[in-house]
C-alpha cells in the first residue's frame, strides 16, 4: 500500500534562506499537504524569510500562529523566539520554554511533535546548518515510521547539521536541494493522479 502522507516538516539553520527558496519556489499553489518549517533565527528578527519566500513562490508562506489549523497549500514558519509544536488535532501550539540545542525555535521540538502526531504520515527533511539541532528530531520521525530526507552535506552551504542527521538516523534519502524539490513535486503529482 502506498503511504498516505499528511505533512512535511523541514528544519534548517545557517544557509537556510536560499535552501528553502530552492525547494519552496517550485511547489504548486495547491501543494497537497501542509509544510511546517523551522529556520533558526535571532529572537528579535522580523522573520524576513517569509516576505522573501512569498516573493519567490506560488504557495502561501506564513508565520505560524498558535492554535492555527494546518492546511494544504501553505508553509508555516516558526516565529522567532518561540518553539513550535504540532497538536494531535493538526493545530499549532507555541511555547517559550528553555532553548533546546541553544535554539528557540528548535527543530527537534517541532519534529518530535510532528512524529507524535502524524506517525508514518510525516516526511522529515533536514537542510543546511551549523549545529546538531534536528538530529533527535529526524530520529523521532524515523522511529515513528515517517520518511526521512537529508540534504547532501557536500552540497549544503553549512554541512554540520545534515552530517549529524545522517550519522544519527541513516535517512531514507540523501538528496540535493533540486532532488528534494523534485521528490516533493513527484509526490504531489502522484497524489493528484490518485
Amino acid at each position, binding site marked *: 500500500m502506498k503511504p498516505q502522507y499528511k505533512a512535511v516538516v523541514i528544519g534548517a539553520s545557517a544557509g537556510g534562506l536560499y535552501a528553502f527558496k530552492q525547494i519552496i519556489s517550485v511547489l504548486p499553489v495547491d501543494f497537497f499537504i501542509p509544510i511546517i518549517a523551522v529556520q533558526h533565527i535571532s529572537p528579535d528578527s522580523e522573520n524576513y524569510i517569509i516576505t522573501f519566500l512569498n516573493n519567490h513562490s506560488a504557495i502561501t508562506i506564513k508565520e505560524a500562529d498558535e492554535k492555527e489549523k494546518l492546511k494544504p497549500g501553505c508553509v508555516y514558519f516558526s516565529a522567532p523566539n518561540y518553539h513550535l*509544536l504540532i497538536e494531535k488535532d493538526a493545530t499549532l501550539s507555541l*511555547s517559550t520554554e528553555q532553548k533546546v540545542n541553544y535554539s528557540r525555535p528548535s527543530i527537534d521540538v517541532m519534529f518530535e511533535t510532528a512524529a507524535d*502526531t502524524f506517525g508514518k504520515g510525516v516526511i522529515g527533511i533536514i537542510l543546511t546548518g551549523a549545529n546538531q539541532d534536528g538530529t533527535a528530531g529526524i530520529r523521532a520521525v524515523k522511529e515513528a515510521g515517517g520518511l526521512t530526507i537529508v540534504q547532501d552535506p557536500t552540497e549544503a552551504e553549512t554541512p554540520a547539521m545534515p552530517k549529524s542527521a545522517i550519522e544519527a538516523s541513516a535517512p531514507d534519502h540523501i538528496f540535493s536541494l533540486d532532488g528534494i524539490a523534485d521528490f516533493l513535486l513527484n509526490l504531489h503529482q502522484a497524489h493528484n493522479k490518485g
Partner: protein
Amino acid sequence: MPENTSHNDLTTSIEIEFLLEGIFRRYGYDFRSYSPAHIKRRLINKMKQNKFRSLSEMQHHVLHDKNFFNSLLKDLSINVTEMFRDPAFYVALRKEVIPILKTYPFIKVWHAGCASGEEVYSFAILLKEEGIYDRTQIYATDFNNNILEVARKGIYPVDRIKEYTVNYQKAGGKYSFTDYYLAKYNSAIIDQALKKNIVFAEHNLVTDTVFAEMHVIICRNVLIYFNRDLQNKVIRLFNESLVHGGFLGLGTKETIQFSNYNAQYTDVNKELKIYKKKVNE
C-alpha cells in the same frame, strides 16, 4: 511484550488524562485545558529524567510526594522570562498607553503570570521614568509560589545583565540601566525603590476569580499554553477585571481576536497586541 505504536499512543493519552485529573483533585492545579502537545512533552521529559518506565509509575510519585509534585509544577509552568522582552512592546506602551495613564490620579496594574518578575520590574522602571510610579499600585501574580518567591527577591543572575541592558535601550530607556540594580558577586539585585508599590500574590488564572478595577492588565506568553476554550475563559476574567477604557497587553503571538470579547476592544497597537476596552456604550 512488544506493543504496537497505536497501542502505546492510546495508553499514553489515557495516562496523561488520569495524571492531570489526579493533579487537579489532589492539588487543585488544573492543567486539563492546556495545550496537549506541550503538556505531553513536559511530562515525558520529566518521566525520562527520573527514569520512570511509564507515566503511571510517575503518577504514584506525583500523588504521594508533594515535593515531587512541586518539581513537576515547575516543569509544567515554564517560568522562562526576561527584562524588557520584546522591547518594541515597551516602546508602544510608552507612546500609546502612558500618556493616557498620566491623566489618572491613581493607577492599578495587574501582571498575570509574572513568573520570576523581570517583566514587572521592567514596567515599574518605565512608570518611574515617566513620573507616575508613585501613584501606581502593581499586582503581580502567578500560580507558582516558588517562582513568586524569586520575583519578590528580585535577584537575578548577573550574566543576563548585558542582554537586559540592550533590551532596556531598545525599549526606549531614558537613563542608564545600571541605575536600577546593584551588582553583587554573581547577582544583580533590583533596586529596592522599584518594589515599593508592587504586591506579589499567588493567583491561578484557571481557578481563581477577578481582580477588580484594573487600568492595565499585562499577561504575556501565558495564553499560548491554554486551549481556545480556556483562553476565552481567561480573557473573560480579564474583561471583568478591567475598567472601561483600560488596557490589555498580551504576548506578540497572542490575540483576543478569537475570543467572545473581541468586539468590546479596539486595537491600540495591532502588531504588539495592546488593546483598549471600549468605554461603556
